[in-house]
């Protein structure tokens, strides 16, 4: 899918061109106010751009030069909103079937609920669910209509840390099962590492980089690299430097970083982090076996 969008608001200008690889999870990554959510709204048709185009293979969803602009209803999208937007007057089941138009497919809802770990909650109302459960309802509601593209607007940001960590796994599992092209808005680098196959980095309404997470965060494509997701288990800091201990699959790694960086990232014990190293920094030793 190729996206080229231009739009000017009162105090903000968006001008982006990027691609969304089919069947993959693409992260739109950047600080707040970079224009990430606006891009999702433009792709879904909830807002109309001033110029540009959205081509999905042969299909044209939007093309300013040809005066084509499909309504949100005509674009096959599944949108998971930041605060979920579950219909408060409908039960979990009714929320999930809302977008299903074919009567024959209504039976699939049971499987969807099972997939999302929501069996037994069919007749609950959104107000009776936890944040994590609401998030999963929103996800399967969006997937239930079998969209060609799934759009997630910071789907985990409204949740607490523990739920977020657990849901990252669920999200990836469910999305991969559907093999749906996904665009995932986040400002959390750990989420990018855990979920994304492709990253588009945005800043002030512009794309500054795009590529695989490794290309983006390691500076270049590397044939060998260390890249592990771990959890911070200890931080010892003085005013200048801090020693951060990270555990990954039972192995401890200790590294030094600037204390300033710790404060900037609000890094605390329990946070998920990525440990990365360029291949040139990796030393190999041959393990000698006793003969």
């Amino acid at each position, binding site marked *: 899918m190729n996206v080229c969008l231009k739009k000017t608001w009162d105090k903000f200008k968006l001008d982006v061109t990027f691609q969304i690889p089919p069947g993959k999870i693409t992260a739109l990554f950047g600080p707040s106010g970079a224009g990430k959510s606006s891009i999702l709204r433009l792709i*879904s*048709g*909830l807002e109309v751009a001033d110029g540009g185009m959205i081509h999905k293979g042969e299909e044209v969803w939007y093309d300013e030069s040809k005066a084509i602009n499909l*309504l*949100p*209803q005509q674009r*096959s*999208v*599944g*949108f998971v*909103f930041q*605060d979920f*937007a*579950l*219909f*408060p*007057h409908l039960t979990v089941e009714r929320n999930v079937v*809302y*977008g299903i*138009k074919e009567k024959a497919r209504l039976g699939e809802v049971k499987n969807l609920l099972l997939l999302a770990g929501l069996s037994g909650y069919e007749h609950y109302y959104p*107000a009776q669910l936890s944040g994590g459960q609401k998030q999963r309802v929103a996800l399967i*509601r*969006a997937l239930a*209509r079998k969209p060609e593209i799934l759009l997630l607007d910071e789907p985990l940001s409204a949740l607490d840390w523990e739920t977020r960590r657990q849901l990252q796994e669920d999200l990836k599992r469910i999305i991969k099962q559907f093999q749906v092209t996904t665009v995932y808005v986040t400002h959390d680098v750990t989420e990018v590492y855990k979920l994304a196959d492709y990253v588009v980095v945005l800043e002030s309404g512009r794309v500054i980089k795009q590529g695989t997470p490794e290309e983006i965060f390691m500076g270049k494509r590397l044939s060998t690299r260390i890249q592990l997701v771990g959890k911070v288990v200890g931080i010892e800091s003085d005013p200048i430097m801090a020693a951060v201990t990270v555990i990954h699959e039972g192995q401890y790694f200790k590294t030094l970083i600037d204390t300033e960086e710790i404060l900037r990232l609000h890094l605390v014990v329990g946070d998920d982090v990525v440990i990365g190293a360029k291949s040139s920094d990796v030393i190999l030793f041959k393990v000698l076996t006793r003969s």
Partner: protein
Amino acid sequence: MINFTVPLFLTLKLSFVTMVFLFIIGIPFAYWLAFSGFRWKFFVESVVALPLVLPPTVLGFYLLMTIGGNSFIGQWYEGVFHKPLAFSFQGLVLGSFLYSLPFAVQPFQTSFAGVDRKFLEASWSLGRSRFYTFFHVILPLSRHGIITGCVLSFAHTLGEFGVVLMIGGNIPGITKVASVAIYDEVQSLNYGIANIYAAILLAFSFLILAGVYFINRRFIRTI
């Protein structure tokens, strides 16, 4: 005894018919007012709200001028239906419709506009049309506003006097509603009968309003 029930029954009939018309016409009208970007909308809104501030006699007077036997509409109506529109039940329904319009349309409009836009966007992005979204999202989420609008317009018609007197007169069984009957009885110094009408209207109006507040509180709690 007949004398009692006829005006009371007529009042209820008028209120009910008016409410039904206001529901059928008021809902699409309120939807348009809530979501249209029409630049002269404020003008339409002011016209709708006029009965709130206008003396009923003013509305009644102009209505009489519009639908009376000498008017174009009055003559057209008489030509088609072979009876006058003024001083008829149909005329009363028209007058009550206009007189109670803001009491129905404003609560409808406010509750439609109050539905969080994210629910509408969620519905559209799930492939549902604006029409479907209206019936499955906007209407259910506005139900307390709709109940309020219906009941207020019913109750307001119940207490209508000025407009009715101007365009309906007091023809027993046709246009003589309870409020006009009270006036008539007082004019004839029949305070006892007037009191019975008044007490019934008072009790009825109170019960209706109490019912609305009760139902709305329950709905607000469950959503």
